[in-house]
């Protein structure tokens, strides 16, 4: 097995607020191979963004990584100092955010915002950086690229701004691109264009991608592997086909069940499972999903379930996978007892 590009283990991040410690991420582990697209899905507040921000060293001041490691090409991202990290950001690892309307600086031309990234990481002249910026704009299909470099963000539509963000992210040929809900704020038709563009560029440039989304439909179309997060933890993990064919966690099943038909493009949004996610100030000591889970057992409230194998490359964090647990159709029925 080749060594993965990124190997995260037991990542835990908390926010220390006036109300107490918010345990936003609790022991997340995953691996990412070069050129792979990993989807992370989960309801709002499940810790998807904070997981990625922790890797990038971009937590706001009250947030701290309290445990874990994240090996990227043999270096632990979590122990790098600010200088080393900033040399990596936008260069080897870059990031796209959810809202293109607010993630570009309104008082600088978009060209400048691309060029400054190139100049930060490459020893090239300004003219060369400009040429590269034009090339990038053409790559992300912004029409009349050379002219548009001089425009300000407010002169672009949301979709075009997201293309600018992608151009910035790709400026230095990153090995890993983190896209945090890159299409959530966009119109449906624009969403598809941006996703298609991302997927195409990924194929062309061969970088690895972490794609965060609420939308299982997006995952199904784009990702190779999926991480389902809930309450700051990985609830289920596996290849897309496998996970969609045999969801092995009640939460994942809930997510899937809330989509009427995967082939019907209009309703990819999650309709929420009844109840709300746990308060991360006081996370339950057992399974975080227990208050909302139809299968919850006494054991679920008593202790946190470990990650069980649900297949060769498929894992799920649910007591139902314990050998002594009652079998539940659809989740553990097909499971061969250990």
């Amino acid at each position, binding site marked *: 097995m080749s060594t993965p590009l990124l190997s995260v283990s037991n990542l835990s991040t908390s926010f220390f607020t006036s109300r107490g410690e918010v345990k936003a991420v609790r022991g997340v582990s995953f691996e990412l191979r070069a050129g792979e697209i990993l989807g992370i899905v989960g309801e709002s507040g499940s810790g998807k963004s904070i997981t990625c921000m922790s890797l990038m060293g971009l937590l706001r001041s009250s947030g701290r990584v309290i445990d874990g490691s994240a090996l990227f090409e043999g270096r632990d991202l979590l122990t790098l100092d600010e200088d080393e990290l900033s040399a990596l950001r936008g260069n080897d690892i870059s990031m796209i955010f959810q809202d293109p309307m607010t993630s570009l600086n309104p008082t600088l031309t978009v060209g400048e915002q691309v060029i400054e990234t190139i100049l930060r990481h490459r020893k090239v002249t300004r003219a060369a950086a400009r040429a590269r910026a034009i090339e990038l704009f053409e790559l992300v299909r912004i029409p009349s690229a050379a002219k548009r470099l001089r425009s300000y963000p407010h002169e672009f539509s949301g979709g075009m701004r997201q293309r600018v963000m992608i151009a910035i992210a790709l400026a230095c040929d990153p090995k890993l691109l983190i896209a945090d809900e890159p299409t959530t704020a966009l119109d449906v038709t624009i969403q598809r264009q941006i996703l298609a563009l991302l997927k195409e560029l990924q194929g062309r440039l061969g970088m690895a991608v972490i794609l965060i989304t609420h939308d299982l439909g997006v995952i199904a179309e784009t990702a190779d592997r999926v991480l389902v997060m809930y309450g700051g933890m990985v609830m289920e993990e596996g290849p897309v086909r496998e996970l969609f064919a045999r969801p092995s966690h009640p939460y994942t099943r809930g997510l899937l069940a809330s989509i009427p038909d995967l082939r019907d493009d209009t309703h990819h949004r999650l309709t929420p499972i009844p109840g709300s996610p*746990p308060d991360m100030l006081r996370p339950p000591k057992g399974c975080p999903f227990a*208050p909302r889970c139809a299968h919850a*057992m006494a054991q679920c409230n008593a202790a946190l379930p470990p990650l069980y194998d649900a297949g060769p490359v498929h894992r799920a964090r649910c007591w139902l996978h314990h050998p002594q*647990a009652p079998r539940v159709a659809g989740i553990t029925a097909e499971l061969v007892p250990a």
Partner: protein
Amino acid sequence: MTDRMTDQTVAIEIAPEMWVPATRDGAAAEYIAAPSLTFWQDVRKRLWANKPAMLGLGFIILLVLAAIFGPMLSRHTYFEQDLKLSNVPPLFQTYAVTDSAGATTRFFFNSGNLNLYEVTPSGEVAGLLRPAKKDLIKKQQQFKFGDREVVLDTAKQQLSFADGAALAPGGWQWNMSNLLGTDQLGRDVLARQLYGARISLTVAFVATLVNFFIGVFYGGLAGYLGGKADTIMMRIVEVISTIPLTLYVILIMVVFNSGFLSVVLAIGSVYWVDMARIVRGQILTLKQQDYVAAARTMGASTPRILVRHLLPNSVGPILVTLTMLIPSAIFIESFMSFIGLGVTPPEASWGTLTSEAVETLRAYPYQLFFPAAAISLTMFAFNFLGDGLRDALDPRLRT
């Protein structure tokens, strides 16, 4: 990889009763939700937790009570003069002289006007002591206490007996007849201070109220009418807000002459622009919201919609603007009084009190303390309360 191995080893024995369906109660008990508060309960909680704001509020309440009841309880009035007892300090060092008959006289020396004042045993100022003889050339005054004689050297500001032995001062004594002393016309500073608070606060509250009504009316009308009328009305507001308003308060004061009513009118008619903007903005946003349309289709009348739906939603920003307007009004009033355009003597406001104190700054610097402290503390109080309110209403802004 190691992670997964350890996970699998957790396949420990688990008691069979643990596999029964969880009771919902158990689950609910495990998951303690934060109590959900209504918006205003939340605001009150946050405001309550904000110490400077609560301190400010407490101070304001005390101040209002003092302004209402203080003048009633005071022994003195704000206008009654006693030129013989002018510029008496609140605190002084007493001297005592006993004559051979055993009669003791206590008195203190006012270095500002070089007078001696007799003091009763309880600390009240009994009156001015008249010198028996004045020697203007040697700058000496002689005072007789029965058969004893005390010489006041006004140049050296020293007191001595006739034989040259210096008088030793006794202890410090608080002025019991005028707790904060008297001003240059011998009026009681405390009474004037309380009365000044009454005037300053009344001007501020009434002027703010006038601004409030004009602003709500103007902004409400603009927002409600919308379209062309709104555009024109807001252009006018834009023009007004570029005008230096203090100048206009001054001009209005010049036209109406000084006095309490003109101050209220001048301040009240000028600072409503922010209020108008806020109200209009709120009304415009709320007009587009579904529940207003719903109320309308259900046949609610316009005033009813305004009162039931629009205003409650604008209360927050309006409240903040009001708490910020009150100290500005206090400040403008005192500013006007300071340059001689405020209330007319003998009426007092914190502004006139300050400017009177400035006149005697060289001789009696302490007289500046009370009006300056009163106005500054009040400013603090309103500022803290306003900041606190804003934070409580919009926690996102808390910095």
